[in-house]
């Protein structure tokens, strides 16, 4: 019986190593190790041998079974490896080819900018509003403390509509979003916390100007509003929008509808506000470390009056900046000619 077992082992191992594919291996496994396999048959005969030989033969038989099983497993692993290798070759694709993408749309830069500006101000309780883009002179100029002979009211600065004059003056294409100031004040809801974003129009078209552009106008009016509040809001905006390391400064300036008025500068993101680049050259992006962000100021008492608000009781601040310009300062988008934003060349639009 011992000989029989050893012979069986050799036979089984030969069959395993001779198996050319998984099917032959499966067959060999069934033939020797299966429930009706030859090794099982031999084991069944163990009952017939002498009792003192039984443990030795029993363990030998088990030992042989283990070994054959191990050979089958090893051979199977070997075959799988060969098989995968074959698949790798047969089913290989060029994985560097691009994937099939879902349709990819593109938002215009101005939309992205408007969304970010809206979100930034929404967080500190400023609600976005919408007011007319074609409005009366009263809202665009007169109510903003701009006298009739103010240069902005000349016909080479502002677009006028070919329409009858009303008791609120001529019909104009709003040259700024500031027409929203008096309109919002007229609602009489306090505190006023407004961010108005709209199209604006000016009679200009060159590399740095477009006849239609966008502005965002902030207005905050309440009791006891001071320059400190303006400063707080502008610092908040600058740091949320441009990054926490940016600084602002207020410089005295002149606008008709605010007093005091400021120009807001933000430290340059390219040279870090030093005005000098790493290679010791003068920074070409900024003016001595600062970039002009836009104008702001404390709402002029005459503007409050025009909106039916008592300037003795209420004070406020306002600012109105160009959306395109502000966003380009953020992204460091160096657009040589701003008109490209409105030329709608798909090669440009689809980069955003």
């Amino acid at each position, binding site marked *: 019986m011992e000989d029989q077992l050893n012979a069986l082992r050799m036979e089984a191992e030969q069959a395993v190593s001779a198996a050319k594919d998984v099917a032959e291996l499966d067959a060999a496994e069934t033939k020797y190790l299966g429930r009706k396999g030859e090794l099982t048959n031999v084991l069944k005969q163990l009952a017939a041998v002498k009792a003192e030989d039984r443990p030795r033969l029993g363990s030998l038989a088990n030992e042989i079974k283990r070994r054959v099983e191990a050979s089958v497993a090893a051979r199977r692993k070997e075959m799988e490896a060969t098989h995968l290798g074959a698949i790798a070759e047969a089913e290989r694709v060029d994985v560097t080819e691009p994937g099939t993408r879902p349709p990819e749309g*593109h938002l215009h830069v101005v939309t992205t900018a408007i969304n970010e500006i809206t979100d930034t101000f929404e967080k500190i309780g400023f609600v976005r509003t919408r007011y007319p883009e074609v409005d009366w002179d009263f809202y665009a100029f007169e109510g903003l403390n701009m006298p009739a002979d103010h240069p902005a009211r000349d016909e080479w600065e502002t677009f006028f509509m070919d329409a009858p004059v009303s008791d609120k003056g001529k019909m104009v294409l709003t040259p700024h979003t500031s027409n929203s100031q008096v309109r919002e004040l007229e609602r009489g809801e306090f505190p006023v916390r407004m961010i108005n974003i709209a199209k604006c129009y000016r009679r200009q078209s060159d590399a740095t100007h477009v006849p239609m552009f966008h502005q965002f106008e902030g207005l905050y009016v309440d009791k006891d509003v001071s320059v400190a509040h303006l400063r707080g809001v*502008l610092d908040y905006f600058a740091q949320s929008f441009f990054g926490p390391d940016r600084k602002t400064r207020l410089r005295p300036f002149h606008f008709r509808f605010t007093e005091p008025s400021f120009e807001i500068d933000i430290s340059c993101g390219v040279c870090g506000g030093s005005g000098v680049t790493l290679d010791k050259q003068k920074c070409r992006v900024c003016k*001595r470390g600062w970039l002009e962000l836009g104008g702001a100021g404390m709402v002029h008492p005459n503007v409050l009056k025009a909106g039916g608000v008592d300037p003795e009781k209420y004070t406020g601040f306002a600012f109105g900046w160009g959306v395109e310009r502000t966003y380009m300062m953020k992204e460091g988008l160096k657009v040589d000619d701003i008109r490209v934003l409105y030329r709608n060349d798909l090669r440009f639009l689809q980069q955003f």
Partner: protein
Amino acid sequence: MNSLVSFDWLREYVKLTETPEEFARRISLSGPAVEKIVPLHGDLDGIVVGKIKEINPHPNADKLRVVMVDIGRETPAQIVCGGINLEPHQWVAVATVGSKVRWHGQGDLVTMELAELRGVKSEGMICAANEIGLGDAFPMEDRMILDLGREFGWTRGLLKPGSPVADVLGGASDVAMDIEVPSNRVDAMGMVGMAREASAILNRPFTWNEPKLPVVARRAVSLRVTISAKKQCPRYMAAKIEGVKVGPSPWWMKRRLMSAGLRPINNLVDISNYVMLELAQPTHIFDASTVVGGIDVRLARQGEKIMALDGKTYDLDDTVLLIADDEKPIAVAGVMGGEHTGVNVNTTDVIIECATFDPVVIRRGARRLNLQSDAQLRFEKGLSTAALPEAMARTIKLVREIAGGKIAGPIADVGETKYEPLSFSVTTDEVNGLIGVEIPKKEMVERLRRLGFKVGLKGKTIHAVVPWWRDHDIESGRDLVEEIARIEGYANIPGKIPFGLGPRPMDPELVWERRARDISKGAGLTETYTYSFVSSDLLAKAGYDASKMLRVQNPLTAEFEFMRTTLLPSLLQVAAENTERASDIRLFEVANVYYPRKGDLPDEQLELGALFMGMGEPWRVAKGYVEHLLGEMGLADVSWRRLSTDSFWHPGRTVQAFHKGALVATVGEVSPKVAAAFKLGPVALVDIPLEAVVPHAKTAKAFAPVSTFPDAKRDLAIIVDWRVEFDDVARAISRTSPLITNVEWFDTYRGANLPEEKKSLAMHLTFSSPDRTLESTEVDGLMEKISLGLKEEYKAEMRG
């Protein structure tokens, strides 16, 4: 308004200890913003004073000389030079080896090297003025060298062989600051005004001495001056000076003019410019011998002409203010003098004009003539009538010092002469409340005084009398707050964020506008931004009538003339412009359109437009986009109706969507005629009036429980007349039984194997019940019922 300020010049009127850098940083925080600091002198290293010892002929060249020049060394330098005005003992500027010059005043700077010119060694160059950046100061003919002795004889002490030319010129370390002056502060456009500003901000002594008008004995010669246009010219002063000598200005004046970016012309013109730079009050000096009779300030007459100093002739009308004599215009008031009355080399008697003009007439006149000048730039900001005596006195003083001459007769002074200063009040509480920090009362008063206000304090009320040089920009007590605050700067004001809630929720239209954009981007469309105003050409191409739109009265060009009532022509134009580079185009835009209303502002309606081109059947892609968009906006119940009566749209390929009776979208191909006008093939467009959609839009979704029993699916293909529409068929099928839960189109076919008038329509049908599994026989029964119904209603044949 930018102004170039020489730091040295400024320091003549205010005692400063700061470096230009420190000065710039500090003053920028209080008003005048220093944008740039540039050195005034080019690189003059190695350019030295030389004295010519000998001039010898060049052995190999007729036009060259071999010059021995003493440049302070033991042995003179040997220089080959082609200058035609070389003289022995002449003082010259020598560019030594290693220095940088600009050959003949052109091209880049080149470094001097030891050279051999036609076989003779040369250790540098004797410079022409334009080779060392002095071309404007000393205009000379070609091949003439700069004669330092002639131009700088008065600095004799500095003319030493070998000493730097920079020292002779003076101000070697001077810089020009490019300062942005706020537009209402024309006074600070003058050097004296800027010094006054600096003195107040930095609290340093202001050292300008105001010149006084000379007292003139009454003599027979008097100037007749009248003002016909009193509103446009509140005050006019004129003085006649006899016996002046016209010539070049002294170097110090030239240097200062150049530092401000002006080119020296002759001493009289230069003086006028100099006083303008100093005091921001323009003056005009003209040749007295050309004036016939008296001087009048009047509006021009229709048809009058003037040849201005720029050599061009201008046609005038009554919007233009003139200075005229009895016969002709002398000058366009405040803008530019006339060519014929200008000062020239033969002039001996001049009239100095110093006047105040209405800023609006100056601005509009200059604009009307398309003529700009430094004087006009100042006048149109508004100048004080009280500025005249000082500017006149300063001009007379400089003319007499530099050009000689005597005052002939009394100085004419017509118009407003009694000056009433403005005054305003503000309380200290107002100041502190508005600024947000506490400033001591005394400090407030002190700051205003430094700025030239006469200040009285009564309790908490500050009463300030405005100095004349600020009488155009200080308009109310509120302006005093700014003056008090800005002197200190705003750097020390701590920021406070006014936290709180928004006064109301955002307008749903704004909310949905943003979502519609995001949905469209997600659907693969590219967003455009086109101009709200369009040309009548574009509208005509698209078949729209421009006369029904609001027109811009003063358009920039005809391209931007009509306020559009639709986005679609603009989108077609964008497609046409991109068609060469892209075959499949999907665009969208969201913008207001403007419907005119009688007697009111236009109705601004928010519209979404989209365009699809390429991609097989563009109308199908467009419709799919609309279905998707309306679905995402929560409009579940939409019915579609064919549109075939609008000439803009394709009569057979356009459909409109309605929700609760309201039109919410038009989608289809544009009419072939319009497409052809834009040179486009089939293009599908979408027009969605967001105003009609938004009231129904919602994010909340209704849901029906999902049946736990399996669906049964069957396909159905029928042959019907090709005009029979799927939507009707689908409705008919659905009506058959509530167990039919979905009818999904998947194919329409016309062509081979089918009669001409027929089409095959194929659909997937879904059957399901919420409470049981449908038996196959039951579904078969329903299919039978469906086909019977379709046979009856549409004469449909079932396909195998």
